[in-house]
């Protein structure tokens, strides 16, 4: 599964996939990667991305990369979340939310979850465009150089690699 996601991500970066799809996938990947996963909010976001035309592989790879280092962001997220959740003006709202069905499972009262939601609400658009820009730059400036480099060619000619690529081509009809 992980190999599939990695190959799909490489394919997405190098194929004619719409950059927005990949950028959105990476943005969602960041969100899922840094948010604690012991709540239904996390699963809802994950399920939502099934409906969107984004590169699922890229999303999963980004989430998997960020998950181990997510606690590094906790102090920042906790700070934001705590100030949001303890704001006097919002206390009534959160008290009501807490008494609503399903909401206690959403993890909204967790400072890191709340901090992630707020942070990503602000950062997701810049991140999306940043990823999109980076992808375009990659495709225009870096991709051809990498593809034509001796090392990649040699790696590509390795029997095991060509075998894996062939299997995935057959399985998922990938062209490269």
């Amino acid at each position: 599964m992980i190999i599939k996601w990695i190959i799909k991500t490489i394919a997405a970066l190098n194929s004619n996939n719409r950059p927005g799809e990949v950028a959105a996938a990476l943005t969602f990947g960041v969100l899922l990667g840094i948010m604690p996963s012991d709540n239904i909010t996390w699963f809802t976001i994950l399920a939502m991305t099934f409906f969107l035309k984004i590169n699922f592989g890229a999303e999963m790879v980004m989430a998997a990369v960020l998950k181990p280092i997510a606690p590094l962001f906790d102090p920042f997220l906790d700070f934001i979340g705590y100030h949001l959740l303890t704001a006097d003006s919002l206390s009534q709202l959160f008290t009501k939310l807490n008494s609503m069905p399903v909401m206690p499972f959403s993890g909204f009262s967790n400072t890191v979850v709340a901090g992630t939601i707020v942070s990503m609400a602000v950062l997701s658009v810049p991140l999306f465009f940043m990823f999109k820009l980076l992808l375009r730059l990659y495709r225009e400036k870096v991709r051809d150089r990498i593809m034509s480099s001796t090392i990649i060619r040699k790696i590509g000619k390795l029997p095991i690699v060509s075998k894996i690529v062939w299997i995935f081509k057959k399985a998922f009809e990938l062209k490269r």
Partner: protein
Amino acid sequence: MAKKINIILRKKYTEKKFRKKILLKLFLEDEKKAVLDLYRLENGYYLPSDVTDKKKIRELNRIAKTVKSNTGALGIGKTGALAAVAVLILLFFLFLKNPLAEKGLEKALEAAFKAESEIDSLTLSLLKGEIRYRALRVTDRENPDKNLFETGKAEINIRMKEALKGKFNAENIELEYLAIDTDRKTRGEVSDRGEENKTTETKRPLPSFKAPEINRDAVIKAIEENLENLTLPAELEKIKESYETAKTDIENGIDDTEKQIEAFKKKAEEIRSVKISSALEIDKIKKLTEDISSATKTADGILVNIENTGNKLKSVSELSKSGTSLVNTAINRDFTLLTEKLNPAQSFDLKEYIKNYIMESFEPVLKKYEKAFSIASKLKREKGEKADTVKVKRGRKILFPVTDNKPGFIIEKTSGSFIDGKRKYSLQISSITNNQELAGKPTDFSLSYKKDKESISIEGYFDSREKREKNSMLKLNIPAVNFKLNDFLPGIKTVEGVYMLTAEASIEKDRSLSGLAEINTDNYKSDGTDDLTGKTVSSVLNKNTPVNFRFSFKTGKDTQEIRLDSNIDKMLKDAISPPELTSEQKKIIKDSIESYFSSNIDENSRIAEGITTLKEKLDSQKSTVSSEKNALKEKLDSAVPSDNIKIPGADKIKLPAKLW
């Protein structure tokens, strides 16, 4: 037939449409170039060219496919896949929800009690909000061979609305049975358990109490030990002294009388030797008459002395009688003293023994009570009662106030049965919750058992509210229960009877356990051993006088106070008090006293007998004096002329009266 290019690359497009539908969906320059090579721009339209090269056609078809795939924000294929996944999840859930729920609940119990937990055949109905299972067992962490508790078949009705708010609100739980401290088939696994605290139950041996037998040796020993306190030796000594004084006086009197008699006899001899030949020997007659008169007076004096000595002898006889009486009084007094000392009741301390016995009988009940309290305590709020935040794995959880005032976990009513040993109680528990403040009441429980004439009722509560008076309270009432015990009391092989019990126990706020139990027992039928212990205890029990116990205890962290009041020891002591001794026991004590002092008594008797022998001597002296006196009278009669002869002064001679 030659393969055709995909329709989207065979169509004619306006310049604007071509840009929108084709070019903007191509993001790789080589692909854009390949498409632009295919089309030519004529009169504002992009027109496709014919391509025959199969390789080129294949390449263009691939590009057409990517153009198609880069359309729209929603992927139809993905949505379909998601729908398929949803169906699969649904099927998976339908078939695997029960095993998953079973595992989940087992894990939850294991997390709560930190010991292996098992649930058999769980079925979960989300729509009805119903959970059923066949059995549930939770291992006791302190003793993995036992279950902390287990339940039989159960049906739990959950309020699903509250469940969606993250609350466990069970309207009702029907339990087939609940049992605590049951044996496990296999040893349960427990996590991070401390030192194993194995307690081996040892049967308390009967106390070393043994009523001493009253026998001759025991009495002699008691006499020797209490010699100074006995009155008989002093009395015997006093009597002996009296006898000896009397004997000396009497002997001295007899000796003095003997001497007087000798002198009198001599004088009488002289008088008798005087011969009067004629009545005309007036002077001689006159002198003889005077001598006889004087001798008669002497004889009278001697006879008075003899009478005095005889009186002393008589007083010795009285002394002997009163001495016997004094000895008997002293013996009786000493008998009382010795029976007190020998009293077997002195060693009866059954109260202390029974205290331990009762404590042992109550201990399992109290342990179960404490265990039930510890289980109830585990349901107390774990996450800081008043803290605003709680630290979680990542970040902090802000505790917002609850607006609906309902606790997160509550089982409103549980009914079923509770098994303890051979008894199956009907059980009712209400308001099992992790937040009694919100529930507004403590967890109440009641157990009742009724079979034939036996009935037991237990009720109580567990309170964890801030303003509670006590942590817990338990009331126990057993109106009348027949019992049969073996080796319950010393000297008793079996005992049957009826007991009534009312008890109250409570766990205070400082977690100390205190309680009071009143046990009234009656209608005893006991089978005792043949020794004094058995006979005594048995006789007390079989009198059918109620035996009452009032048992109070308080056990804290460092303190343990146990107190038992009972009328049994007094009853036993009364039973063995002197008036209650058997005639055989009394005879043994009296005989032993007499035997111990027999030499002293015998000596006194000998002295008394010795004095009695003096009476013969006294009688002999009296007889001698009387006969001599009579002889003198005869002499006087013979010496004095006939009636017509007047002897001057003869009328003045008085013959002594009857002497003895």
